[in-house]
């Protein structure tokens, strides 16, 4: 069971960047605070979260289709983020947005939903315009 409170978390540095086999861009960030269950719960409101709490460290993964995937451990100060290939120019800052709007609590969730809708609309327009060029 996830529980937690809103907290301010910032990225200190990006320590690893690579392009994955599927074309997604992987970045590993070091944060100024450990990841909390609250943040994982926040992620769960906008995508699919897998949470394995019976491991040596509680592991989570987060998947938001066409946006990003995130992997990490509750209590760790580093996190691995993959930005999907197709819309990297649109969602390149999305993990920063997640951290920023998480700290604002419920109002942050609402505002992030608005941004999500806007981004999805841009993605749709691009797909409609360019079709297979984007895939």
């Amino acid at each position, binding site marked *: 069971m996830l529980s937690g409170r809103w907290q301010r978390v910032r990225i*200190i*540095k990006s*320590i690893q960047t690579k392009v994955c*086999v599927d074309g997604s861009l992987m970045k*590993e960030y*070091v944060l*100024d605070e450990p990841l909390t269950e609250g943040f994982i719960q926040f992620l769960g409101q906008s995508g699919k979260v897998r949470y*394995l709490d*019976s*491991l*040596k*460290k509680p*592991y989570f*993964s987060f998947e938001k289709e066409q946006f990003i995937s995130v*992997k990490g*451990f509750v209590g*760790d*100060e*580093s996190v*691995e983020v993959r930005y999907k290939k197709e819309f990297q120019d649109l969602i390149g800052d999305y993990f920063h947005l997640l951290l920023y709007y998480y700290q604002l609590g419920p109002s942050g969730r609402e505002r992030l939903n608005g941004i999500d809708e806007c981004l999805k609309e841009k993605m749709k327009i691009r797909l409609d315009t360019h079709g297979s060029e984007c895939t």
Partner: protein
Amino acid sequence: MVKRSSLYHKGTAMETRQQNEGQGLIYLNNAATSWPKPPEVIAEVTKSLHNPYFEQGRTTAMGAIDYPAAARETLAGFFHAEKPDHIIFTQNATDSLNLLIHGFTRNTTAPFHTITTELEHNSVLRPLHALEMDGALTLTTVPFINNQVRLAAIKEAIRADTRLVVMTHGSNVLGSMQDIKPVAEYLRANDIFFIVDGSQTAGHMPIDLTGIPVDAFVFTGHKALFGIPGIGGFYLTDPTAVAITKQGGTGSDSSSLCHPLEMPTRFESGTHNYPGLASLYAGVRFIEGVGLAAIERKGRELTTSFIQALKKTDLITIYNESPDLPIVSFSINGMDNYEVGFILARAYNIIMRTGFHCAPLVHRRIDEGKGCIRASFSWFTTMEECRVATDAIREVAESAHH
């Protein structure tokens, strides 16, 4: 308030582990690069860096070890190679294979047919594919059955214009050693050039180049030979079969603008990787000290124990349950391989390799091109490390299916 500049120096768990020189780390990625290295190797590399470099023709220094010559003699003895000067040093196996494949191709006057296998690494597949795209050769890739490439399959693929066969001695994914002797004998009898990639076998298994008629045998230093990354090489029986594709300074015949044709300078130009050669020299001597039989026996014990432990759950697929080499490839059913590797590395401090292992054709056959997780052991891997690792893998598998 903590200043941002000081926060910047905050490291990850991985960085901290690296700073602690691997303390508590279980390293099972030896088929990629062996670790740790024997103390003798580290001492020899240190010694090589302390002394001025010495190699005939390149310095007036005296009294130090001529590492290129010492490594050549040591490797020739280790591989039972007839002519030490026919051992050529390169950066690694990929460098060797490129030099041999492109050199052999350049030496031919017309496009020809080549045979390779589904077990190959991209160090073989990519140069061959590039040459195929250029129209320099046509390519047949023979399949493996029960982890083995059969001589019959190679015979079946041979055509009137077949000039070259490139084949691995041991699969880096399945850990299966290939019976190259009958293949070598058949190809020699039919005048087909045979390059063997020994990247995974050299240092694990006895290799007798006097008894097996291969035309070129490729090795790398940084795996089971316990050298450092950046050193590798090959043994070439007939130097004239391969065109010279790199020219430069050799420390010999320097007044001529033509590259020397003598071995080993024929294929070696530029300053050698002396620390790499020192490590290779010491690594092979270390193996000779321990004994290949003992290394082989321990590898089998570790591999058997690891596989038996994984088989305690039906949540894991093992791709070869009886490998000849200390390599075990597996996946956890229903879990992404990269995710498993990530969890094992970050939560359990266990290092393996995930993905395609640079052998895409093997994965098309065994796992529908999804890739897998590979554990690979060395002389320094302990039974306790295997136990801890298999416990962790089972814990991850059971947690994901809970």
